[in-house]
């Protein structure tokens, strides 16, 4: 390495130093710290006390923790598939390049921009409140509305519907994927007499499968980390049916100040997400189609 190269390297690192420092201080350090804290009892006010694997054992007998697992799995396994199906559907509709396509895409993407926000969550409360919009409309049709947020079997569905409504970003990715499929395949299929549904099953889905895999993984990760909506709309109730993992973790960390316990929870969540991501990857060779078969 000559002087010039070394100088360039130093300058290079200097230029990216803000991000490096950010990574070390705000990402790597907290990760390590939380791993260590997971083996301690730490209430913030007094120094952490080493308790070994106690926190992990307590997870086994914490019924609210089990409720939170149940709620989170329920949410992930309903909201994620529904959102993906919905996103794909809308992407199919928006695929043809008409004159207003850009406008429609913009409009359909809009909910995702605002959907995660606190404001929408507050509006959602009103919409599904016992004197909210939904019950008002039902009332006009002569149907007595439910107490959506107070009923243990419907409360989580208000959150799932909100999640499905935010289909924008997977939709855009699907749209890009759909545009990549060569028209010649469809043309050849039509000549051979394949109808719309057959084309969808035999051409669109296999050609789109890498994109589906990507979306699936991103949405699974997102789904497990759901927080804001439940925090504002239901605060975990009724009967813990919407007590999502992150919400309970937050309550443990910042309301009960059991930082060690919360850290242990965070690491379990990491393992759960890693497991399902790995599962998606492993299963992909049975259903994901790459054009260059050898080089996948």
């Amino acid at each position, binding site marked *: 390495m000559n002087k010039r190269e070394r100088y360039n390297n130093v300058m290079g690192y200097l230029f990216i130093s803000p991000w490096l420092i950010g990574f070390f201080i705000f990402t790597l350090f907290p990760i390590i710290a939380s791993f260590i804290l997971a083996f301690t009892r730490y*209430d*913030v*006010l*007094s120094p952490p006390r080493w308790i070994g694997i106690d926190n992990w054992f307590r997870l086994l007998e914490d019924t*609210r923790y089990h409720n939170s697992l149940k709620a989170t799995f329920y949410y992930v396994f309903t909201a994620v598939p529904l959102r993906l199906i919905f996103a794909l559907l809308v992407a199919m509709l928006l695929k043809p390049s008409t004159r207003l396509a850009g406008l429609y895409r913009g409009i359909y993407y809009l909910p995702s921009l605002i959907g995660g926000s606190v404001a929408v969550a507050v509006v959602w*409360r009103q919409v599904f*409140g*016992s004197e909210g919009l939904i019950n008002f409309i039902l009332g006009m049709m002569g149907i007595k509305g439910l*107490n*959506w*947020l*107070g*009923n*243990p079997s419907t*409360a989580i569905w208000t959150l799932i519907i909100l999640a499905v409504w935010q289909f924008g970003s997977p939709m855009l990715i699907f749209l890009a994927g759909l545009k990549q499929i060569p028209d010649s395949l469809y043309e050849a299929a039509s000549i051979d007499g394949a109808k719309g549904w057959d084309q969808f099953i035999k051409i669109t889905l296999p050609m789109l499968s890498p994109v589906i895999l990507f979306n699936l993984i991103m949405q699974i990760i997102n789904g497990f980390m759901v927080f804001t909506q439940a925090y504002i709309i*239901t*605060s975990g*109730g*009724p*009967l*813990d049916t919407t007590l999502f993992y992150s919400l309970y973790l937050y*309550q443990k960390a*910042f*309301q*009960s*100040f*059991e930082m060690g316990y919360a850290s242990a929870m965070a690491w379990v969540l990491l393992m759960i997400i890693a497991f399902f991501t790995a599962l998606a990857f492993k299963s992909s060779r049975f259903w994901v189609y790459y054009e260059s078969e050898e080089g996948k």
Partner: protein
Amino acid sequence: MHKWVSGILVLLMCLTVFSTILPAQEKISLRVAWWGSQDRHNRTLKAIELFEKKYPNIKIYPEYTAWNDYWTKLNTQAAGKNLPDVIQHDYAYLSEWATRGLVLPLDEYISKGIIDLSSVAENQISPGKIGGKVYGINLGTNSLGMLYDPELFKKAGIPFPKVGWTWNDFREIATRLKNKLGIYGAEAITKADAQVFKVWLMSHGYWLYSEDGKSIGYKDDKLFVDWFNLLLDLQSKGAIPSIETDIARGTLGVEDMFIVTQKSAMGLLWSNQIVAVSKAAKERPLRFALMPRAPIPNAKPANYLKASQFFSVTSQSKHPKEAAMFIDFFTNSLEANKVLLAERGVPISSKIQKSLLPFLGSSQREMFNFVSLAEKNSLPIPPPDPPGATDVVNNVWNPIVEQILYGRITPDKAAVEFRDKVTKILQQR
């Protein structure tokens, strides 16, 4: 060229560093933190302005939030050794903070007269005492009460609650209100952070926690079962909002309380909250009744006087003397109290109480009257909740109340589960 640029950068850096240091040397700055509603923020900020006018060399930096975020923030600041100078404190946490050395004893400033407590009765000072030393100055006196709407009572032809009324009277009144007017008899008594259950126990002669804070304070689970049978009965009659309704309502702003919108004739409140609620109810007259007593012969009173909140000086403060002066200003300045207007509860200085009278609105006057009524019908304040009490309320009490009122578990079973779980939490600490 390079040197020139870096030279400027260094200069800029020095400037920013110095600009933060310099003014602190000429002027003393104090950080003051409190929790509360918007109304409290406005009042406190005005009082701070008055203080700064009186002491031009002291600059106050206020930090205010709502109750929940307040303790998150304060605990984090404590860990980062970055606490404000003066913090608003609560009876539940004061002893913990004092034993950890996070707040300073104020006796030195009291004996020097920097905090003047000459017109304050001893029983107003004692709540802030831990181990014989004063760690917090009471900002106002409170008691839990049943707020009622006299208009609605008259409409239903029901006499007002009397001193010494019991939960049986309450059941009857609430049910009659429901049947006559088609509105709820009372709201906010089900979960209530276990507050109502605590005074229910108190009136029976017990408390939720034992003296040492290591176990449950009552022996007979019948007390637990009776309480929830009462609630279940009221819920089934529609005399209180069902658990579904309450959960769907979520955490409420005062504007959405049923007592404000006249959908309920009674509601549970701390006495100082009457000011905010009356404001939301457009100053419609609302009145306080004492908490109902246990339905047993020789029931004890179900009220106690509580310091609504304290001001404490943190041990990380660099200017404890000025911090003490600030607290004194809140306690003894008539000007300040005219602005604060007992929003934190009845002021502890008897002088201020008297001089404030002409300036009170009707809701504040009702609060003053109620607190003095409660004083005559009260038990001494129970010991502060043991560490772990937050855990008990959030992770045992609230879930179990929901399970009972949703009908998922019987009160008998719940009583046993409650005892098991609470005991476990208390003994872990």
